[in-house]
């Protein structure tokens, strides 16, 4: 099943589609209001974009610098070429200490690496602690959004889930009450956890620090109690200096949810001080992960996507994402940015995604780090066509169209004949012929004359002058 089929499933429920669309548009509107309060918003986007592009031009130096500084601070740095290495490093860290209970705060990287199923299969309990992440974890499904993982679910569905998992009373669907139940359940797990895993929003080369941003405080709670903190970070997350954090943190929450800043913006540098007598000394391990990022860096047309700070603004604004849902993409990261990133991993599997786009350009307009998303999506289409990743029907059709467009005279004769025939056919037939565009709409009436013919007629009239 591809994106089109899964999206078709999603839109079958019209009221849900409308609800999903409106929920995300609400977040997009909040983003606009928040951006409007910042007088230097556009300059800030320029600044953030160039900081990231500068960092991408000297990744080896910055990561070496980070490694040295973080090691000095007492952290242990690991390098993972791919998802398997990453998962194995995390497993080894847990197993050598005999740890079995782990809490994790939202990290798209560990999603990408499939860390949860990997650890679960080896007898380790790993609990997602972000409420939305916890909900989708209990439902055994991936997040449908990179910032709001359970945006596809209604409160009644969460209620039913909690009825089964947390003993919620039948029919409970009040968000306050449901959150209170989850809080109680997760609090026990925070207290019992032996290790905490977090993602990283920004790694600072100069100081070996990294920043983790949450609204719930789950990354903080998950690292405050257990003795072991494992931070997993993708190669693209590095920025040169502490002062570079300012533009990104001014942009991030405003772009993501329209908040002035998230509730918790935590700066870690090395393990926390040894304070607890009789418990294991606190340790911090940082796993730096490539998993396809260096390949993406080698592709000039797409490397800018590595500047992405995962705010989700492009998802919230995308007319296709809003109306097809995150799961329809079948990828770790959905929406415009996912459609750019995922084909570089597996062009064959994700060849459809760059076509799930109207090229409206809204994603590019809201992106806080100016990733030229819709341009990249268009470029992907060309790459995928050249790579032979288009379905036969499209390849043949585009081949014919290409030849036709190269011969204006033939084009005119053929379209003229086509119009003549089409005007005589019943609309229902035509709609069926031009599917899938006409699955949910009907074609406009076929005009008697082409645009060019109409323009020629106007020109003739103009030279004749007014009568």
């Amino acid at each position, binding site marked *: 099943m591809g994106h089109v089929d899964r999206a078709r499933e999603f839109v079958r429920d019209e009221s849900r589609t409308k609800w999903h669309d409106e929920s995300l548009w609400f977040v997009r509107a909040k983003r606009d209001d928040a951006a409007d309060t910042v007088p230097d918003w556009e300059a800030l986007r320029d600044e953030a974009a160039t900081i990231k592009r500068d960092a991408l031009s000297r990744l080896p130096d910055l990561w070496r610098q980070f490694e040295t500084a973080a090691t000095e601070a007492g952290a242990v740095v690991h*390098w993972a070429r791919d998802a398997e290495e990453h998962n194995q490093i995390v497993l080894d860290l847990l197993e050598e200490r005999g740890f079995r209970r782990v809490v994790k705060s939202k990290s798209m990287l560990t999603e990408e690496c499939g860390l949860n199923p990997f650890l679960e299969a080896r007898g380790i309990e790993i609990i997602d602690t972000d409420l939305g992440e916890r909900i989708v974890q209990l439902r055994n499904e991936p997040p449908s959004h990179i910032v709001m993982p359970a945006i596809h679910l209604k409160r009644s569905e969460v209620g039913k889930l909690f009825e089964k998992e947390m003993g919620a009373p039948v029919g409970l669907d009040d*968000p*306050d009450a449901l959150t209170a139940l989850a809080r109680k359940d997760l609090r026990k797990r925070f207290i019992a956890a032996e290790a905490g895993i977090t993602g990283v929003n920004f790694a600072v080369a100069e100081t070996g*620090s990294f920043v983790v941003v949450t609204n719930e405080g789950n990354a*903080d709670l998950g690292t405050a109690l257990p003795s072991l903190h494992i931070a997993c970070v993708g190669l693209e997350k590095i920025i040169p200096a502490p002062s570079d954090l300012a533009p990104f*943190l001014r942009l991030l929450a405003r772009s993501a949810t329209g908040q002035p*800043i998230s509730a918790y913006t935590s700066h870690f540098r090395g393990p926390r001080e040894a304070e607890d007598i009789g418990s294991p000394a606190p340790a911090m391990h940082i796993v730096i992960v490539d998993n396809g990022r260096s390949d993406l860096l080698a592709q000039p047309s797409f490397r800018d996507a590595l500047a992405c700070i995962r705010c989700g603004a492009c998802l919230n604004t995308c007319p296709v994402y809003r109306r097809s849902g995150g799961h329809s993409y079948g990828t770790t990261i959905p929406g415009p940015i996912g459609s750019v990133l995922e084909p570089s991993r597996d062009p064959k599997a994700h060849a459809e995604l760059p076509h799930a786009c109207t090229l409206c350009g809204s994603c590019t307009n809201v992106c806080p780090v100016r990733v030229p998303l819709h341009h990249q999506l268009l470029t992907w289409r060309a790459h995928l066509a050249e790579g032979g990743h288009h379905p036969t029907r499209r390849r043949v059709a585009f081949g014919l169209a290409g030849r036709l467009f190269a011969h204006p005279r033939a084009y005119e004769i053929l379209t003229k004949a086509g119009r003549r025939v089409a005007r005589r056919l019943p609309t229902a037939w035509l709609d069926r012929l031009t599917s899938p565009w006409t699955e949910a709409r009907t074609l406009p009436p076929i005009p008697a004359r082409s645009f060019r013919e109409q323009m020629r007629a106007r020109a003739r009239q103009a030279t004749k002058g007014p009568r």
Partner: protein
Amino acid sequence: MSARDQILAALTRHPAPPVEPARPESRPEMPANPWSVLEERLAQNGGRLVHSHSGAWIDSVKWPCEFAELTHVYVAKNVPESSPTPPASQLSPTAHLSTLTSRGVGATAKAMRDLEPLEVTVLYADFAVAENGAVWHVPASALERTAALLAEHLIVLVPASSLVATLHHAYERIALAETRFGWFLSGPSKTADIEQSLVLGAHGPRTMQLVALES
């Protein structure tokens, strides 16, 4: 070749072209009414601003119950003294704060987890940021960090004189290379993961009061 060397080599093979990092010449200045801007932004994050005289902050904040009934409170060591609230007026000002502090918990491994029924945590932050309603706070210990997260209610005091306009100004004041752990706090712990409905108190404090202390 190790994973590290392989990754570094791969990154060296295809670097992005160098760019000149852009540094805007000017940053937004302090707004004319910085505290009301801060108050509005903090409210957006679910927090509440209180103005108080340094010696009377205990009177100015909202306590979750009668002050005398509080049993589990964590007060950071650097929190300034405050005069007591009647009816606890039998206590001298300093005694009052120390009573509050003595209800806190010690820094042992067990205590970290025993912080759990904590009702209120009171912290003292370095400075506040007008543009987003955040304060910069460096916990004195892991225990203090945990206390800030496990309490039902959070109170953060900050000197009113130490207000900066934006995060750019904030980072000029932060020595990150010497900071093992520090955070910007703004509002209580919150989530909107169920149908975009804002719920305060996702994991940590359900309320957050920021007290601007006038000396």
